[in-house]
């Protein structure tokens, strides 16, 4: 289960909506399964960003160091699926990392439609849905 504090959730949603029709992405930081901070990161994919995102590892490392400094940890990754449901796609799976929860936000016509969270496995073959609580 992953729980996201209300203001953090609102920030994630508004970031994902702002990125529409491109995919937006970011990192969720917190402790003990509760996300208390989100960090929006630039999508550095150099192809069409409507259906793909890539995070710069240096950005990710910076977020990790800030989390470490504040006694928190990186709990998950979020990204949006513009005009598409919040499933964990094959491409998501192929680029996933089992250390994190993956929150996928379905943004349709620029507004949040629904969201899900997934935990991918080590072999990048299966992602199980986990309970997502926000607010």
């Amino acid at each position: 289960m992953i729980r996201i504090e209300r203001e953090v959730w609102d920030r994630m949603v508004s970031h994902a909506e702002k990125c529409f029709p491109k995919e937006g992405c970011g990192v969720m930081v917190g402790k003990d399964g509760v996300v208390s901070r989100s960090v929006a990161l630039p999508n550095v994919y150099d192809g069409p960003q409507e259906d793909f995102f890539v995070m710069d590892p240096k950005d990710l490392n910076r977020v990790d160091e800030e989390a470490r400094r504040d006694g928190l940890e990186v709990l998950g990754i979020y990204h949006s699926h513009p005009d598409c449901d919040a499933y964990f796609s094959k491409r998501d799976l192929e680029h996933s990392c089992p250390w994190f929860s993956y929150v996928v936000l379905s943004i349709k016509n620029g507004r949040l439609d629904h969201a899900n969270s997934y935990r991918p496995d080590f072999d990048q073959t299966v992602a199980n849905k986990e309970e997502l609580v926000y607010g």
Partner: protein
Amino acid sequence: MAKILIPTALRQFAGKVDSVEVPGDTVRELLAGLTSRHPELKRHLFTDEGKLRSFVNVYINDEDIRYLNKDATPVGANDTISIVPSIAGGSTAVAEPAQAASLNKDEILRYSRHLIIPEVGMEGQQKLKNAKVALIGAGALGAPLGLYLSAAGVGRIGLVDFDVVDFTNLQRQVIHGTKDVGKKKLDSAAETMLDINPYLRLDKFETPLSSENALDILKDYDIVIDGTDNFPTRYLVNDACVLLGKPNVYGSIFRFEGQATVFAYEGGPCYRCLYPEPPPPGLIPSCAEGGVLGILPGTIGLIQATEAVKIILGIGESLRGRLVLYDALSMRFRELKLRRNPECPVCGDHPTITKLIDYQEFCGIPKHQPQAPADSADIDPVEVKALIDNKTPFTLLDVREPHEYQIGNIPTAKLIPLGDLPKRLNELNRDELIVAHCKSGVRSAKAIELLKQSGFTKLRNMKGGILAWSDKVDPSVPKY
């Protein structure tokens, strides 16, 4: 010694430390030192073959070792090693190369009318072929579902049923024919479905779905379609789908009316959000008790089939959050908005049901029928016949509806439909024995209960109803 920074997500596997200092001259040696000190980290960083996992990037200071000398990159005493996962992803189905087993020439011909729809095409047809659908019940709803899903090219269908085809099924269960009466529905349906589409992989489960087997059976399928008509199974299918995170394509039918929606899909509501509690047992008659227009399950089953195919193809707008109500008599569809209930015991924010329960008990159906007291015990139709033949004074009370009475009746019976009984009690003699009957014994048991509460004492319920009467006493009374 060089320092390795532990990613915060992995600290729990490294004794909660932020960094580790390990001796070694190359990245490879350092990482080996790290995992021998903290063995739990090993599977997070390396595959079983000992290769760095594809999502793990290693940086020495600010440089990615992939652009240096990979894991042979030399490390100095003042260097800092960072482990950074590579994170990417994408929504698109379009750019994804279809991983499906490709279609052969015969299949291309077979599905040509799908392949020329842009929204389906080769990719969609391969999705259908890759799809795994569990179909609960090979009855009224299961019949059109089984026929059309097989025809559409759904690659694998798991069919769950344990019933046998009888004559009363043929008015609506079009997957079975007259020649199939007496066969297992599973075998009869399988024969038809495989005739329509020999490419189908059909898994047969000859068992009632239960709390013991549901998760095990359903876990291998992508979508669950509920074609059952009893409450315990509906709640069971619902809860199993929520727990497994699988969409539950729902349909129900009664006389001229039907409902359909998709539960537990993409954050939408589940059956319990709509109906938190089951109705009291017996309140809602089943199709066997109340009847159903034979064509109705065709309409509702095909709405379910359409939803399943849309989910597989990832196209259109699903019925998630919308309950479609269909009235065949007025030929109108209405729609109700459904919302996920945050308080829902199974799909809510704080679920209290986290595993399958006893659904018979939940729906108020006792496991063993309690022993009826002597004054309201069952009576066999043969004994009733003897009472009539011996001219014993008693009232034979038929609590069915007038149109059922017309199909067939016992001549000495007095007809008072169950619904009229409370206001017609004065027509009954309290001092005389009353034997109640209906079609199969369910409604008459309710009548007995009602009479008992109204102070009647000499009561019997004719076991098995007029169906048993036809079997045991008078075969000229038609069964229906």
